[in-house]
């Protein structure tokens, strides 16, 4: 369960504090419910994900995580460009306390990511799809209750998406997912509930379809 209580967030810009991105977001994400975040560009989806993931701090309000929450998987986050995929993976295994079964976890990551020889090349040479594969593989190597994904499946090819979907089906009994995506198909496939972010506020929908409808209504035709 994740409790988001009256969270306010704005970013520091070059000319003083910027506009409020989140203006009092209050939510409770129940256990074992996969949620999709919907909203226009700049609505604060990634911001909210980062705050839930504990990577960024709210200016006001608080977050309570009553589960093991993964780090937010997103574009390039958490990977050091100058190091190889293998070196990055080893680092992540180590900081999660898997020194003892390192080779086992590494095999699992390598197996999922299917990067071939590129696994030993620096991450900065990867395409965005390859990065996604690595990030996704990394997070699946650890047992989290909630996985946070910021468009991470978006860049992958069809085969990878199938694989990711299958992996999540497997996990569904023990883990859930909080994700941002602009692909409605992806959202419907992975999520049951939805959060619609609009004007710095969040609205909860028990059905992702309703959230998508609510979002669509605000788009001028």
């Amino acid at each position: 369960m994740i409790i988001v209580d009256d969270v306010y967030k704005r970013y520091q810009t070059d000319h003083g504090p910027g506009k409020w991105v989140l203006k009092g977001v209050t939510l409770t994400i129940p256990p074992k419910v996969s949620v999709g975040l919907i909203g226009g560009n700049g609505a604060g989806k990634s911001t909210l994900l980062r705050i839930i993931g504990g990577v960024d701090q709210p200016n006001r309000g608080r977050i309570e995580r009553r589960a093991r929450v993964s780090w937010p998987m997103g574009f390039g986050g958490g990977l050091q460009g100058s190091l190889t995929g293998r070196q990055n993976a080893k680092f992540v295994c180590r900081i999660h306390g898997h020194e003892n079964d390192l080779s086992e976890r590494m095999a699992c990551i390598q197996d999922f990511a299917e990067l071939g020889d590129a696994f030993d090349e620096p991450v900065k040479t990867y395409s965005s799809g390859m990065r996604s594969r690595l990030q996704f593989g990394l997070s699946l190597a650890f047992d989290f209750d909630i996985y946070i994904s910021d468009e991470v499946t978006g860049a992958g090819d069809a085969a990878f998406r199938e694989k990711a979907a299958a992996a999540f089906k497997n996990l569904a009994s023990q883990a859930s997912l909080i994700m941002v995506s602009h692909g409605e198909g992806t959202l419907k496939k992975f999520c049951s509930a939805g959060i619609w972010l609009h004007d710095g506020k969040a609205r909860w929908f028990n059905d992702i379809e309703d959230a998508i409808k609510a979002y669509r209504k605000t788009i001028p035709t």
Partner: protein
Amino acid sequence: MIMLSVWKALFLREAVSRLSTGRVAWLWLLFEPVFNVTYMLVLYTAIRVHSVGGIDTAIWLMGGMLAFFMFRRTATQVMYGISANQALFTYRQVKPVDSVLIRAGLEGFLMILVSLILFSGAALFGFDIIPADPLAVLEAFFGLWMIGLGFGLATSVAIELVPEVGKLIGFILRPLYMISGVLLPIGSVPQPYRDYLLLNPIAHGLEAVRLGFAPNYHAVQELSIPYIYAFAMATIFLGLALHKRFATRLVMQ
């Protein structure tokens, strides 16, 4: 427990990126001090300076330079420790203070190795480089490392909060090479200017290293080891306090 795994992982990661990114990255670690010592030695030999303060110029230069690099490399590595590791704060368990502490540890370790290699090299060329008082040398090196750590800790926070401070520190670090007595014996500076120069704890550190190598070295009388350590402790305390105070600001964007 988690902290130890994080530290270990960070240390290995930093070591890999410091030693193996780019072609023969490790060679460049050695090259900078070797180059500096060699060309100054050639210069001093050309103007017939064979001894400084009663000891061989080579020992004087080498001890001083390595001691200075111990400070400067630690300081700059630690200073940029936060911005260089920004990607890693994606993982909640990695804190900015971890990454800078580990960088300081790695740099101290590498500088010890570099110094050992350089002194062994000098021994092969027939210089008498066995320190008379090895503990005193280590004590001074350690003090300089601590000043580097404290300086880096405080400035790493400062440049994250106010990026312009980075440029200012660049201005300060450059003349520090001159006024710390790497090339110019502090003892030869007339009063009252010598007292001003000796406010700088790094100058004390350099003199202490040389004195450790050769007890007959005419070090400045004001040389004070406690001053080095007091200064180091004060900056480390300040740096840690800043890291604690701005812990959330540093990971916030």
